[in-house]
């Protein structure tokens, strides 16, 4: 599917005016209860394997994303399953207090309060992983904002299909979303798109996000480069083979390219299976998943980086260091490198994992500390008695999500990506003080 043609600055201005006018006309005053079903119905289309939109996405996305057709079929339902009406309702209730917080002045402490979403949120979707940034677009509609969605020219299809599906189900709501594309760094267009927005939400590399942030006049929400990892405590190693299967699943989904993909696994020493034996089990599990959800295409530089990692591991082992390498052959489909060195080192991705041992939680905390600003999520399998201590350690270490092993890639809608509320971060509250509802009192003489 081709990206939309690059607009002229005047066309982009006109498009934004049109979005704002449509939003003022059909969304700004519309009860949220009537918005939710349309969003849920749109998501439901992608949960239906027979729908035309789903089939179209399945046909187009492998080439556009580099993920295998099996992977696309597997992850599409995962991407949309959270957007059911009851989940969306629960999200609004949790973050804004009530479902009609955006509709009326509701009771608050000694006063009444109403939330207002901004008129326009510009979303910059980066990279070609399917689904990245779509949540922000749906959240924008939930707070009654128009959404200008900038997609990468090489990977425009899923946002386009979602927008088209929404417009088919609810033309009013669809009129509040515009999908656009232009080469990154296009100064004239970016100035318009970023300066006109009340909020700009962007995902991408730290550099591209910093470049966008400089141009934003309103608020900015950036999702930069993040890494995730997994932790397994020794008590749980009784079920090591099963855990390895779950841990490998987290690695395999999206070919390990997501910010929620675990790049390392810290395995506690002293369990019924040693950390390096766990590495062997993980390798078996990755081989299993390769037959079910084969890896997609991989850029040459990533192949070279994986080769380099393998070469280093192999020669370090030959040099007598405590390093064990498990690797697919002849290609780079999966790689597990066990190393006694505990230092946190990111992986070249595309299903390449380092397994590292730890003996005490203090050692784990020490290994994580240099990466504080970059940690996203931790997948864990931990003894229930030690869970509170481990969870607190991970929270202190900087993660915003702690999940069961095997569920890292399927965050619930309630996850506060980046450690901040999502909807609540978009709205502005207006307090109506109770006194103003009473007749003005006579001045006391």
């Amino acid at each position, binding site marked *: 599917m081709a990206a939309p043609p690059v607009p002229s600055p005047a066309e982009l201005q006109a498009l934004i005016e049109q979005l704002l006018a449509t939003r003022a006309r059909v969304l700004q005053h519309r009860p949220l209860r009537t918005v939710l079903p349309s969003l849920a119905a749109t998501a439901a289309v992608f949960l239906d394997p027979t729908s035309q939109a789903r089939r179209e996405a399945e046909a187009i996305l492998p080439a556009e994303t580099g993920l295998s057709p099996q992977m696309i079929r597997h992850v599409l339902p995962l991407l949309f399953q959270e957007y059911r009406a009851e989940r969306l309702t629960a999200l609004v209730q949790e973050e804004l207090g009530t479902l009609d917080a955006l509709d009326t002045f509701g009771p608050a402490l000694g006063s009444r309060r109403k939330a207002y979403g901004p008129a326009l949120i510009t979303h910059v979707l980066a990279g070609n992983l399917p689904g990245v940034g779509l949540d922000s677009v749906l959240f924008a509609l939930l707070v009654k904002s128009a959404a200008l969605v900038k997609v990468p020219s090489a990977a425009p299809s899923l946002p386009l299909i979602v927008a088209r599906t929404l417009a088919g189900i609810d033309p009013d709501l669809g009129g509040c979303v515009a999908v656009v594309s232009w080469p990154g760094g296009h100064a004239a267009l970016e100035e318009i798109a970023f300066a006109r927005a009340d909020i700009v939400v962007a995902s991408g590399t730290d550099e591209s996000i910093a470049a966008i942030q400089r141009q934003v006049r309103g608020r900015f929400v950036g999702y930069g480069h993040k890494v995730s990892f997994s932790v397994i405590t020794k008590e749980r190693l009784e079920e090591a083979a099963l855990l390895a299967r779950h841990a490998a699943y987290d690695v395999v989904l999206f070919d390990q390219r997501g910010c929620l993909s675990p790049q390392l696994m810290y395995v506690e020493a002293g369990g019924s299976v040693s950390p390096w034996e766990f590495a062997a089990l993980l390798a078996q599990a990755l081989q299993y998943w390769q037959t079910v959800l084969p890896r997609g295409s*991989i850029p*040459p*530089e*990533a*192949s*070279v*980086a994986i*080769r*380099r990692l393998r*070469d*280093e591991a*192999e*020669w*370090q082992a*030959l*040099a007598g260091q405590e390093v064990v390498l498990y690797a697919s052959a*002849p*290609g*780079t489909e999966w790689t597990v490198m066990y190393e006694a060195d505990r230092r946190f080192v990111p992986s*070249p991705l595309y299903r390449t994992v380092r397994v590292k041992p730890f003996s005490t939680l203090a050692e784990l905390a020490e290994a994580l500390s240099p990466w504080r600003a970059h940690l996203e999520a931790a997948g864990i399998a931990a003894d229930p008695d030690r869970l509170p201590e481990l969870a607190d350690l991970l929270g202190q270490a900087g993660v915003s999500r702690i999940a069961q092993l095997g569920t890292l890639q399927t965050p619930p809608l309630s996850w506060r990506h980046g450690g901040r509320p999502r909807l609540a971060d978009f709205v502005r509250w207006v307090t109506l003080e109770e006194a103003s509802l009473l007749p003005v009192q006579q001045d006391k003489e």
Partner: protein
Amino acid sequence: MQTIVSAADISNQVLEFIHNPAGKDFATLALAVFAYQFHRNLPYQRFCLSRGQTPETVTRWQDIPAVPTVAFKELDLSCRPPEKIFLTSGTTQGQQKRGRHLIPDLRLYHDSALAHFTTCLLPDACRLRMLALIPSPAALPTSSLTQMADWVMTELGEPGSRYFIDPAGIHLEAFADAVADAQRTGTAVCILALTSALVAFFDWCEAHGYVFALPSGSRIMDTGGHKGKGRRISRNGFLQSCWKYLKVAGYYCVNEYGMTEMASQFYDNVLRNRFVRSNEPRYKIGPPWVRTLVVDVDTLTEVPQGQTGLLRHFDLANCGSVVAIQTDDLGYAIGEGFEITGRAPGAEARGCALALDEFLAAQ
């Protein structure tokens, strides 16, 4: 069962190949060198055995197990005690381990380097004054490039040959004076330069409004590309600058590609082509005692001719260490050689441009 030859025997066989390559059988000698290394270089033997490969199972030179360049950082890969050790350039922070290439018999390196330099830079059997924008041995004693340049300077250079990068730094003004002197006296010269150093000279010329015209027959060998810091320039831009500032035509500009882990080097074929009247396009050629395969970046299997992949070199002059080297350099086979399309992103910067940065940063 192959007979195991002695170190002296195998070195002499390779030297004989280098001195008189006509009619020699690369495949047979490559397999003999491999068998020798398998038995004498124990880390390499463990590496081969971990792949189930031995001199008994390897029957084609193409199948000799290739050692990745990162291996030189982890282990000393030598068949005998070294006569000399060359180091890859490290970073100023010293965060990365430096690779070590141990050379048991320096004659192989010497003879290989000079023979192919002569073929590619001096096909007209000219004797030239050498002007080197390459660190002198005193400035960078562990560099293999410096060693090679020093042999070229002392054995092939005419009187007046000199270095313009020494322990005190880079001397662009003195270099300009030497160029001006060559121009005034009509003396053809051969410039040996780090690409980045010559680019710095071009920038200096631009800033001072200088343009030189070297006498005909003058030539330039540049090496190192732009692995380090400094201004980046395309190959065409570089060649245009050689013409603009020095009046040296593109077919007298020969880019060298080499690495610490290899005793032999590759050069652009352009100058040789001119003297053998060949219409071949510009690409890199190695000497007859080196073969290069292009392998798939993901599977490391040979790719069809013309397809881009990683370069894997088989260098008989590496007789004292390992004959087969797997690089991170991307390229494709063309004619009798290959062209480099780049270093794989993600691979660390390596080579002499970085060495120059490091050296100048230490000043």
